[in-house]
Structures are given as structure tokens and as C-alpha cells.
């Protein structure tokens, strides 16, 4: 077949046709995927909320409320209700004090602020170090420890200590209003992730921020709350 010649009309025409077709198809795909994309986003949030609060029967997304934290960050609060009664709140909180970049966490609390569970939504911490926070601050399955103990001393000699271990690391059941939720190194009650103190501090910072913001909203006491990393030396995030 003869090739279309490069006349001005031809060229404009071709481009027009291509643009129209591509635009139309993109628009079409957009329409197709729009709902699923939003669903996927919502599902993620929904799943996160489900994870961290007790069973509920309302639509927390619909009842979501945006709150301002003390230091001006925007947090989202999702109330979970069963039969119209508040059974817990999920707060999407964040911190900028991580090892690298922002950390977003969904924290689930009982109405009095006691932590039920959490879920790390997004972070850029180092894989294998800071990223351990996804699991670290939950109660451990006892099995893991058992295997750790079984390690022969030879393996240890050859390879050394493992990054796991650490006793008092679960934040589940703690209440930032009552517990000192900073890392034990800084005099708090939570053991930091081995070799990732910075991430641990940031994590706790976010959790405490969630609590404080929620507490203000719900008029809970914030007396005992210790700012985990508010007095950071050397670093200043705007």
C-alpha cells in the first residue's frame, strides 16, 4: 500500500484522527476504571478501618471527619458504631519524622483511647529495618520466639544475633493518655525496633498524634501524654 504523503492536510488529519481515537479510548477506559479505582482506594481504607476497630455496622467512611492536629496536620477520623453506639474510632494519622519521608498509619482506638490495633498505610522506611514497624508493635506470635531460642550457639557464633527479639514492644492495649508511649531508650515504655529507633520514634509520634487529636475532639484528658518526638533536636519539619 502506498504510504500517505506528508502534505499538511494529511498530517493534520492523521494527527487529528489519532488524537480523537486515543482520546476517546482513554476517556472510555477512564470511565471504565473510574469506579474500580475509587473502589480500590476506598477498599483499602475500609479494610484498614476494619482491621483496627471492632465490628461495626455503620459506614465509617461516610461519617468520617477531618481533624486538625496540634501542629497543624490534617488527620481523618472514622467513627465505628455498632447499633448506633460508638465502639471505636479509626484515625488516619501521619508523621514526617521517619527515616525517609512520610509515614501514614491507621490507628484504631477504643472510645477511651486505648489502642486496639494499627495498620501502616504507607511509608518509605528502609525495607528490612524501618519497614518492620508493620508488624513490630503488635503482640508477637509466641512461636517466633521459640524458634529464635532454638538457634544453636554455633549458628549464633557464625551469624550472630537476629534483629528480632525485644520484649515490650506491643502497643496494643496501651493508652497514650496513660502510658508513656515513647521508646524505652528515651525513657518510655515501648521497645524500639532493633536498629531502627528513628522509625520507631516516628511511629509512636504518629500514634500519639492520633490520640491527642482524637482526645481533643472527644474531650479526653491529655495530661499524661508525652510528646514523643516533638522536641526534636537538629531537625525541623515544616
Amino acid at each position: 500500500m502506498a504510504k500517505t504523503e506528508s502534505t499538511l492536510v494529511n498530517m493534520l488529519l492523521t494527527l487529528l484522527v489519532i488524537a480523537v481515537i486515543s482520546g476517546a479510548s482513554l476517556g472510555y477506559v477512564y470511565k471504565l476504571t473510574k469506579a474500580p479505582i475509587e473502589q480500590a482506594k476506598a477498599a483499602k481504607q475500609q479494610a484498614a478501618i476494619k482491621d483496627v476497630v471492632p465490628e461495626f455496622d455503620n459506614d465509617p467512611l461516610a461519617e468520617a471527619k477531618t481533624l486538625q492536629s496540634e501542629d497543624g496536620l490534617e488527620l481523618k477520623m472514622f467513627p465505628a458504631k455498632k447499633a448506633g453506639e460508638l465502639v471505636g474510632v479509626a484515625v488516619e494519622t501521619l508523621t514526617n519524622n521517619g527515616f525517609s519521608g512520610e509515614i501514614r498509619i491507621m490507628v484504631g482506638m477504643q472510645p477511651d483511647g486505648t489502642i486496639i490495633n494499627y495498620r501502616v498505610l504507607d511509608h518509605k522506611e528502609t525495607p528490612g529495618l524501618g519497614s518492620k514497624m508493620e508488624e513490630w508493635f503488635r503482640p508477637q506470635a509466641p512461636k517466633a520466639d521459640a524458634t529464635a531460642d532454638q538457634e544453636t550457639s554455633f549458628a549464633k557464633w557464625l551469624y550472630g544475633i537476629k534483629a528480632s527479639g525485644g520484649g515490650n514492644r506491643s502497643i496494643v492495649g496501651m493508652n497514650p493518655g496513660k502510658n508513656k508511649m515513647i521508646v524505652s531508650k528515651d525513657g518510655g515504655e515501648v521497645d524500639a525496633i532493633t536498629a531502627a529507633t528513628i522509625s520507631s520514634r516516628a511511629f509512636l509520634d504518629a500514634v500519639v498524634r492520633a490520640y491527642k487529636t482524637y482526645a481533643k475532639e472527644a474531650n479526653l484528658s491529655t495530661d499524661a501524654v508525652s510528646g514523643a518526638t516533638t522536641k526534636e533536636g537538629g531537625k525541623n519539619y515544616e
Partner: protein
Amino acid sequence: MNKLTVSPSPHVHSGDSVKKNMYGVIIALMPALLASLWFFGVGALVVTLTSVAACLLFEFLIQKYLLNRAPSILDGSAIITGLLLAFNLPSNLPIALIIIGAAVSIGIGKMAFGGLGNNPFNPALVGRVFLLISFPVQMTSWPLPIASRMSYVDALTGATPLAVLKEGVKSGQSMAELTEKIPSSINLFLGNMGGSLGEVAAIALIIGLAYMLIRRIITWHIPVSVIATVLIFTGILHLVDPQQYVSPLFHLLTGGLLLGAIFMATDYVTSPMSHPGMIVFGVGIGVITVLIRVFGAYPEGVSFAILIMNAFTPLINKYIKPKAFGEVAKPVKA
């Protein structure tokens, strides 16, 4: 008459050799080795022996089987790499990790480039930083000096003075509180503190420096410029805000500064060729070290600083030439 030998001039040689220089450095490292044996005992011994042996082994294997060259493991350079790698590790580091470090030092840091003389980065530091980043947990648990003499991997550990400082400043403690947690200057000088096994004893390292200067193995330019830069930079910071920034003497005596400035920044292969270049190199190391120590995530920055300046060495060599004869003033070109 037997056949005459013919060659271009010159017909005499100074008698200097690679071996002489390398073994000179090894001798200069001995005081620090003895000090580390004193403070860290068995651990230091195991780590050093493993590291040196592994470096020699990898050098041999790679030369023989991968590069098909006559192995030259006795020229001393692999021994230095092994020693310096060990000197940069905590004395409770498990054997497997030491071996990985040695493999990286020699395999990636040195032999990948064709061996002695070709590598752009300091091999021992390549190994060390590789380990630090791969195994931050194991690489940052420091046995307590003297107390852990008789134990290896299960030694009691504590933090290095620099780590204590960094943690402390970050969690908002005052300098006065922190000074109590930090060993006294005399202990710092003698090396009675936590740290990598070869870096602790300032006095031993300085003896090594003196020896290398007298034997003319190295010149003063690099060590002096590194140390001076750190002293001046931290001095200024300290003067500005003594509450936040610790004294220059502390920076000098803790961490790997002296070890790095004396033995690692001076590595011929990876440092600049001209004296002005060496000074620029040294100043660069000093500045980056302080930046990392004071503002970065890591409590210690000497290794990174040296590696970063290693990367700049070719540029320094290209743009900072030795003073040529007959040149009045050198036009400085960037």
C-alpha cells in the same frame, strides 16, 4: 665476556618497593592492634584473624581462578585491607559476616577493577559500609571495652560515645547530662570506650602515624588536613552553641576519625596524587564527616566521607595538578 645488559636510563633504583611500603603500614598498625587486643581480647583476635585470612584467601582465589594471574597475595596490600576491615568492625561480629565483608572488600572493592592499584574506592571501607548497611543491627552493637575481653559474640554491649551523643541530642538531653555518660578525655585518648576494634586507642594510632611519617610511607598532607578541618569545623559549631554541639576534642578522639585520617584516607590508590589535591581531599573528608556526624542519620561518618571523597579523587587529580616547574601562578579552572 658475558652478555651485557642494556636498558634505558636510569640504571639505579631507590630500592623502594610495594612490599616495603605495605609492610611498613602493617607495622604501623601493630600498636592499634595491641591496644584492641588489650581492650577487646578474644573478640578482637578472632575478628582480626578471620578478616585477614579471608582477605588473603579471596585475593588468592580470584587472582588464580577468575583473573588467571599469578597470585601476589604476599605484597601486603590484602593484609592491610584485612586488618583495616577488622579495625572497622565491632569485636563481636560473627564470623560469617566478617567473611562476607572480606569477600566484598576484595571481590567488589578491589579485584573487580583488576586488583592492586586500580580500584577507585577504598576496599576495606567498601566492605565495611556494605556490612553496615546490610547488617545494621550486628554492625552497631559495640562490646564494652575490657569487660568483654574474654567473650566473643555474646559480649556485653553498649553504645559508642558518638552514638550516645547522637541519641542524647536527638532526645533533647542537655550537654551536661550527656557529658556524664561519655568517658573522660583520658579514657578516650587511651581507647577505653566502645567502638570498632581498631579505632579506639588514639595514642596507638598516633604512634602509627609517626612511624609512617618517619619512614616516609605517607606525607602529612592528608591526615593533617582531615584532622584540622574537623577540629576547626566542630570548634566553630561548639563556640556557636556549646549546649548543642560537643567540643572538638571529643570529635577528634571518638569514632573512626583518627583511624580514617591516618590509615584509610591515606591509601595511595584512592587518594589524590598532588599535595594541593591531597589537602582538598582531606578538607572534603573533614567537612563531610562533621556534616554526617552532626546532621545526618548516622552517628559516625568517616567511612562515608572517605568513600565520597574517593569518588572525587579523579576529578581532583584532573583539575588540581602538582605545581609545575616554570609556572608562576596556576590558573584555577573548575
